[in-house]
């Protein structure tokens, strides 16, 4: 099936090891996600693309048990709606990214747990293709825990 990203320029894909595409301020070093044209810390307009770490730790999370208002939400609503979880994952000591999580089970989510980037199906495009999004999934950390 034809697969398309939910938006261009937010993750490298297709790729063996996809990465989120952030921005980095050339003056103060602040890292943002996604890229933006100016720095919200020092107001500089010198921003460059900066690929983010694929792994990190869960900083905060909740579940979304009812369909968000549509528009703007473009996922399935009504009987087709699948509850999902969202959270912030801290990546490489550089930035915390808000993201869907691949499990919506509160028993499987814990602040501080290791997480890894995954590119997952989100919905169906108008041409029948599959819309792909970034998400984070529980991972085994470097210490094997």
């Amino acid at each position: 099936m034809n697969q398309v990203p939910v938006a261009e320029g937010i993750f490298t894909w297709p790729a063996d090891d996809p990465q989120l595409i952030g921005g980095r301020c050339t003056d103060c070093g602040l890292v943002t996600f996604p890229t933006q044209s100016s720095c919200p810390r020092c107001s500089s307009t010198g921003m460059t693309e900066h690929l983010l770490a694929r792994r990190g730790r869960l900083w905060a999370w909740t579940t979304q048990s009812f369909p968000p208002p549509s528009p703007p939400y473009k996922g399935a609503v009504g009987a087709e709606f699948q509850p999902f979880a969202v959270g912030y994952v801290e990546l490489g000591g550089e930035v915390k990214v808000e993201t869907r999580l691949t499990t919506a089970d509160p028993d499987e989510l814990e602040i501080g747990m290791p997480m890894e980037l995954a590119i997952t199906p989100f919905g169906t495009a108008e041409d029948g293709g599959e819309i792909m999004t970034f998400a984070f999934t529980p991972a085994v950390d470097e210490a094997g825990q």
Partner: protein
Amino acid sequence: MDDVAIVGVGLHPFGRFPGVTGIQMGAVATRAALADAGVEWRDIQFAFGGSYEVDNPDAVVSLLGLTGIPFTDVYNGCATAASALTQAANTIRLGDYDLGIAIGMDKHLPGAFSADPEQYACPSWYGDLGHFITTKFFGMKINKYMHDHGISAQTLAKVAAKSYRNGALNPNAFRRKPLTEEQILESAMLNHPLTHYMFCSPDEGAAAVVLCRADRARNYTDTPIYLRASTVRTRRLGAFEVHSPWLPIEETEGPTVDASRAAYEMAGIGPEDVDVIQLQDTDAGAEVIHLAENGFCKDGDQEALVADGALEIGGALPTNTDGGLIANGEPIGASGLRQIHEVVLQLRGTAGERQVPGSPKVGYTQLYGAPGTAGVSIVSR
């Protein structure tokens, strides 16, 4: 500061009113505030009007009288009413006018608020994916706060149950039926750990506040309430805020803390002096967090304070005595002026069944909302 006084407050009840427009509710609240102050609309020298849904709150003059006064509309998210009040007070301080009014009105559809993410400087995909919704921010914030500071879900239920109890004592409230902690905990889980009955709802209503130069206050009332401080602040980098696709590693306190500190300094009053408190309880967790953010306790102390009944009308920190947003709902433009209405009644000693005992002297109100804006007001007898 003690240069501005509140001499009249008025409310259109909060709830659902089919067939009544937001503008009409604004006129009802205004007439109630004018009557409370003992003045006529033609005496009012300037006005500020706040609303989210009503494009031009100043159109209320069609229902009140076309007197030609300067009437400025403000919109500032959930801090809209605090902004209208602050601007009205500052207009009196400038010395050009002696008597003015702040009016708030709104009429929202049921369900969570929605908007175009790009109007909030967010990418459109953020909305496509379902991130552009405020309720999940509040879920994440209290979930993390509970993890960090040892707050239980039972405490959230106790806070919500208190709001419904207080709402039952308030004839102007939207939700007037007491709910048990079990009913609250067992209602549908919306954003873990927040259940349906732990959230407020967008609804309809209006409120108005008449202000004057403090040295003229006794011309209008025997019980002037002085506006000692009114502040608005926005988020700094590192605050954990709604509608944020990312956050920096560095962490800082939110705009409520900044607005609160500025208000205490302006008023020359500390949290230990406050007798009655109105906090933004978009959800029960927000009330818990805001207790600490406004200086009324340390992070984590809420667990014991709530268990001991400190937030009850007869407690040490009477909070959301009229049922707060949970029992009143949130017509954005009016919500903060509803808080002022409540603390004015409490300080006058006319709050009826929900009157805080002991002749309260100092009242405190706080608003918080998207995209990271807070407002705080402090009033005293």
